[in-house]
């Protein structure tokens, strides 16, 4: 078979050359976030200076307090567990192209679900069974609370970002009402009665003590293992299943998803269900595993912090785990500040959190573009005819 082709091919449609994407993963996944983190901490240091304390000393206290096994490590892991759940929730939704800021509200409703289940069944079920029921209740409740905004986006075009913000506040009101009027234990009405000890699994330090491992007392409980499982599960879902492929496809290119015969509407709803379920599992860590009762505002802002964790971890489960650990350490460390630096309120964590999110996500290009351009220039000099 012979072919000869004329050079009648016209010039391509002009498009300015963009930075080619031959960038190693460690550059985009480690170097850039690390620099952004450093910037955020730098600005936070300025705040600490403004208050009249030493940034280095503050940081040292925070980190040692958080990472010392005999001290705060267990609590760090406990916070990291909650953040893993909420971070995974945001990450999954992001992969499908959705911004789920409703983790806080989804966790609230899940807490409600866990509390209702436990209050109803704690006299009748042993600990392992109660735990399973709690997990199911949390997942279902959280998924439900995310389903509504998902449905509204898929079928009625209501933007998920705005509706999830609204639903956070509606959930808070709902929880408030339930605690005050329905399931509260009287008094101030900000918490339920404690669940029966027979239905509670032991905390990790209690479980490990008979084995000779000594951990400082903390809230750390079996939910941590569940979180690790979820991280693995999310990875599996996104990169080893057809559903995960479809979700990522939707997030990358809705047009290609349509070409591939997929329904954007049902994928959107599915993504939100999974996301809400994951966020809801945070309630297992806190309401069931740690507190043993439902307390008002138990989420402590972890839902919002999950967004920071997901963004910092670049929406990858491994990154989410690392970022959750980092933020958990900062969170725990900030509570330690009270002793040594009574003038610095623990809300410094909010300042750090806000700055990290700002530099890692909002001001992403500030660091990313010079670093990537610099790397490309350097590597092009190594290979002039790339």
């Amino acid at each position, binding site marked *: 078979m012979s072919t000869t082709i004329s050079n009648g091919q016209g010039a391509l449609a002009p498009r300015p050359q963009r930075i080619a994407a031959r960038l190693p993963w460690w550059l985009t996944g480690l170097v850039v976030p690390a620099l952004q983190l450093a910037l955020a901490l730098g600005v936070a240091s300025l705040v600490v200076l403004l*208050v009249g304390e030493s940034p280095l000393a503050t940081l040292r206290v925070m980190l040692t307090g958080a990472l010392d096994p005999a001290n705060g490590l267990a609590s760090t892991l406990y916070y990291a567990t909650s953040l893993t759940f909420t971070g995974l929730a945001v990450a999954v939704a992001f992969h499908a192209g959705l911004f789920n800021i409703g983790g806080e509200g989804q966790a609230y409703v899940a807490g409600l679900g866990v509390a209702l289940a436990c209050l109803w069944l704690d006299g009748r079920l042993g600990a392992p069974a109660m735990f399973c029921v709690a997990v199911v209740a949390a997942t279902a409740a959280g998924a439900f609370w995310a389903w509504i905004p998902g449905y509204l986006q898929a079928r009625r075009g209501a933007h998920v970002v705005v509706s999830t913000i609204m639903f956070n506040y509606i959930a808070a009101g709902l929880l408030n009402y339930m605690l005050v009027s329905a399931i509260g234990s009287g008094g101030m009405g900000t918490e339920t009665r404690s669940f029966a000890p027979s239905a509670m699994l032991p905390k990790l330090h209690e479980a490990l003590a008979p084995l000779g491992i000594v951990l400082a007392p903390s809230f750390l409980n079996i939910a941590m293992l569940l979180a690790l499982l979820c991280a693995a599960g999310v990875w599996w879902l996104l990169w080893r299943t057809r559903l995960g492929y479809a979700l990522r496809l939707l997030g990358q290119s809705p047009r290609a998803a349509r070409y591939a015969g997929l329904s954007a509407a049902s994928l959107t709803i599915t993504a939100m269900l999974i996301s809400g379920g994951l966020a809801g599992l945070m309630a297992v860590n806190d309401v069931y595993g740690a507190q043993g009762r439902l307390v008002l505002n138990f989420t402590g802002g972890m839902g919002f912090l999950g967004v920071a964790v997901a963004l910092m971890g670049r929406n990858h489960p491994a990154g989410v785990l690392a970022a959750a650990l980092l933020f958990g350490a900062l969170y725990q460390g900030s509570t330690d500040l009270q002793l040594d630096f009574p003038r610095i309120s623990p809300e410094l964590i909010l300042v750090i959190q806000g700055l990290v999110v700002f530099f890692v996500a909002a001001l992403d290009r500030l660091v990313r573009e010079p670093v990537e351009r610099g790397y490309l220039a350097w590597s092009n000099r190594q290979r002039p005819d790339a």
Partner: protein
Amino acid sequence: MEDIWLMVLSTAASAIRLACPLVLAAMGGILAERSGIVDIGLEGKMLAGAFAAATLASQLGSPWLGLVGGMAAGVALSMLHGVATIRYRGDQVVSGMALNFFALGLTMVLGQAWFEQGGQTPALDAAQRFTPIDLPGAETWARQVPVLGDFYRIVLSGHSVLVYAAFVLPALISFVLGHTRFGLRLRAAGEEPNAVDTAGVSVAGVRTLALVATGMLCGAAGAYISTAQNAAFSRDMTAGSGYIALAAVIFGKWRPQPVLGACLLFGLLTALEARLQGQSLPGLGTIPPQVFQVLPYVLTVVLLAGFIGKATPPKALGRPYVKER
């Protein structure tokens, strides 16, 4: 009968006072969003404004200086938002959220460190606050006039100057948007930034100016809360009203007069919550206070879902402007 009438009036007056910060912040939100920038950071700017205003008022002795300080704090946060979203084309939702956290934490940290009163700023005395103003004749001949006199005395008179300013504001914003060069360019930037660019006007410049105005208004809203409505700044004192203002912007479909109406409605809900606390209404029983708290959000969601009319945002809202070639 007389009692009920007075109760209605005082609830209305309360609603107006509660709506004031919402109106100020929501007008700021309108300007930002109509220019094409999503701004969920109203809450953070209000907090920063409240803190700055209370601090300056207590240190310098004048609520007006506090107001200026509050507006400046709002503008500072707005400019951070602007740099991230306009210059660096960052995600607008994330930026707003980050700045909310930052402001929340910063106000608490600075408050605790500087004043060591658990995050509160020093209490303000009357000279350092915006005090209620009695309109002429409110306390004298209005008492003689039935019905309307009471209305004048209770509902219209007795608010601080910021409240009166807030209620003149929507008309002013309407005028600016519809009848000035700046307003025209702002609206165009939010719908079709390409058209603005090809007409030789800088989209970034227009949006930045819009954000400056947003910062000033949200800062003023915060200043009202800490120096007029209350007598100091306390931790997280805005308590979500920035998000209610955002809901009002959406509920009022980004137009000043309907948004004003939405703010009044939401203010009324809060006033009713306090007024009807524990009281049983015929046929409805006791309405839990949480219902009033979540109603603004529920209404907004209902609107978003298209059940009560369409909410069409500015066309270019949320998309960073990149010159298309």
